[in-house]
């Protein structure tokens, strides 16, 4: 039974998805999604324990041995991602019980859970697979269901955001396929470990260089790395809030994971970072992302757009750590993946509370409400402090790790960009504080108190950001083992 856990991890949400529609009941679909999320979390924990006990292991899909069959691998590098994705899915499920109904009618809520199950399938499959074409298929499963989820937003503008995301996302995925094709033409294999073993023999092959570039650019779209980020703000801000919370915390993170997997374990640092100037290019783009994302966030009039642009900047931090290609840098990147997932989920959860109480997250509508809703705004401020990266929040720990890694490599300009970005983050979080506490209250009629489940999830996430800021041993050990598995060679 435990031998089949990697397959069940992905199969359970996949089976739950059609059942959600068949049930034709909002409540039933919710239970199924909760079940899928809890099962994924339980399996992730079991897999994580097994990896810490016995080290990395692989699963042969259908009993066909690799490299001919499809191989799934559980190792230090994907355990943290599996845990983050499934834990956030559980949080989203609990939060969504009341939150989804606020923005959608019954039938669309049922469909929402169906697509959330499919997105979860895609993200978990993408994380666990050891076959590169299989990765493309899972990437598209998660992306396609994401397009549908974004289109469910309450404003009609969501449709255009979703369409743009679809076009840009498909171009990115197709670039990824071109890269796979070129790598396949050179090496004749699709298994990641087998590819890694054969890449060395094809040293200096131009087609292989092209494969690296196509894959990095294609995945760069999914990661939303500047300048390929155009789809992100609209998609996150216009989606129903439950979806924003799930996507902001997981989808770009999984894309970053698969990018690191391709760069470090498939093509290897010798090809990607020594023969090609990938590291320098990514560092420049990451610095640009930090500054641009935070700067634009300062000028947003809508809380969800503000958070989405802040995500662009945070992705810059993660990518800066990873593109150093050192143990400290990759570990810092992973740490920030974990911490930012929790912080951003908390932030969107808090935004959802405001949406539930006021029906709007326009900053104008929030004027002077800090005193009337101290707890909701308290959550926003604590999570906001996490986004800036001040102690005692998790954001501080990962930024500290990132600065240490950058100092080690003497990347002073990137550190300067980080500083500027953090100051700008202070401006946009400060602006929220200013609006909430130092403005004359808008004449709000009635503010219903938000559902308890939503409040509980928000505070669990907020407290988790503080907990990981004070005692970072768990995420730090996960991140370190991930960096070790990625840079230790061999996929």
């Amino acid at each position: 039974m435990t031998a089949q856990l990697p397959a069940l991890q992905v199969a359970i949400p996949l089976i739950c998805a059609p059942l959600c529609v068949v049930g034709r009941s909002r409540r039933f679909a919710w239970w199924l999604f909760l079940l899928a999320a809890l099962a994924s979390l339980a399996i992730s924990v079991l897999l994580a324990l097994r990896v810490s006990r016995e080290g990395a292991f692989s699963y042969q899909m259908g009993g066909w041995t690799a490299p001919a069959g499809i191989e799934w691998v559980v190792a230090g590098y994907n355990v943290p991602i599996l845990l983050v994705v499934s834990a956030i899915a559980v949080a989203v499920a609990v939060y969504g019980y009341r939150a989804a109904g606020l923005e959608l009618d019954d039938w669309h809520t049922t469909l929402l859970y169906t697509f959330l199950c499919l997105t979860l399938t895609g993200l978990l499959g993408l994380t666990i697979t050891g076959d590169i074409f299989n990765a493309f298929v899972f990437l598209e499963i998660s992306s396609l269901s994401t397009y549908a989820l974004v289109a469910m937003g309450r404003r009609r503008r969501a449709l255009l955001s979703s369409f743009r995301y679809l076009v840009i996302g498909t171009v990115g995925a197709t670039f990824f396929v071109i890269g796979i094709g070129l790598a396949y033409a050179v090496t004749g294999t699709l298994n990641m470990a087998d590819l890694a073993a054969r890449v060395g023999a094809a040293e200096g092959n131009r087609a292989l260089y092209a494969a690296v570039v196509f894959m990095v650019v294609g995945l760069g779209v999914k990661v939303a790395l500047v300048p390929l980020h155009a789809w992100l703000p609209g998609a996150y801000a216009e989606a129903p809030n439950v979806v924003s919370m799930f996507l902001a915390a997981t989808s770009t993170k999984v894309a970053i994971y698969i990018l690191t997997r391709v760069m470090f374990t498939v093509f290897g640092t010798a090809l990607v970072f020594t023969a090609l100037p990938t590291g320098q290019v990514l560092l420049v783009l990451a610095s640009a992302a930090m500054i641009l994302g935070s700067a634009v966030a300062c000028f947003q009039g809508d809380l969800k757009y503000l958070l989405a642009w802040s995500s662009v900047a945070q992705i810059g931090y993660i990518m800066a750590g990873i593109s150093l290609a050192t143990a400290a840098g990759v570990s810092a990147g992973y740490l920030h993946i974990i911490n930012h997932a929790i912080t951003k989920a908390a932030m969107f959860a808090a935004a959802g509370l405001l949406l539930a109480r006021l029906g709007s997250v326009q900053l104008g509508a929030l004027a002077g409400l800090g005193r009337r809703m101290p707890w909701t705004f308290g959550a926003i401020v604590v999570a906001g402090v996490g986004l800036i990266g001040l102690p005692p929040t998790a954001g501080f720990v990962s930024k500290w790790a990132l600065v240490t890694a950058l100092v080690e490599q003497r990347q002073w300009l990137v550190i300067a960009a980080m500083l500027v970005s953090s100051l700008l983050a202070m401006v946009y979080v400060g602006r929220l504080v200013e609006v909430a506490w130092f403005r004359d209250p808008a004449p709000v009629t009635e503010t219903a108190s938000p559902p308890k489940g939503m409040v509980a999830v928000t505070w669990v996430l907020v407290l988790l950001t503080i907990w990981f800021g004070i005692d970072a041993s768990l995420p730090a050990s996960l991140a370190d083992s991930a960096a070790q598995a990625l840079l230790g060679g061999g996929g």
Partner: protein
Amino acid sequence: MIATHYVYWVLFAIMMIGLYVVISHGNLLKKLIGLSIFQVGVFLFYISLGKVRGGSAPIISPTVQTYSHPLPQVLILTAIVVGVATLAVGLGLAVRIFETYGTVEEDEVITRSATDPADGVPEDSLNGGGGDAAQGDEA
């Protein structure tokens, strides 16, 4: 180089034509057509990889010595399914956009959404330049 590898040149040209259509056209349907051309170029590229000179179709037969490689075709079967699904979702969205906005021209959709107070957010906020002045929330 060109003479021996002309297939790749042609196929990459097809891909770039598709990509150019996606970028240059504002009509949402034309964007989807471009996207399909782009993807078809990639599919053909994969299939061309599997062709072995003088090879026959990969069906075992006692008279045939060389076979073409079947795996790329199988992979592309999967990719075609993904492509069709993407196109279906894209067309579905285009239909919804046409129903709500009455047009499938991207520029038109943006102007109609910007002038509609029901949408809440001004367009420049969508593209990144939005702010308080346009928002009018400096009460």
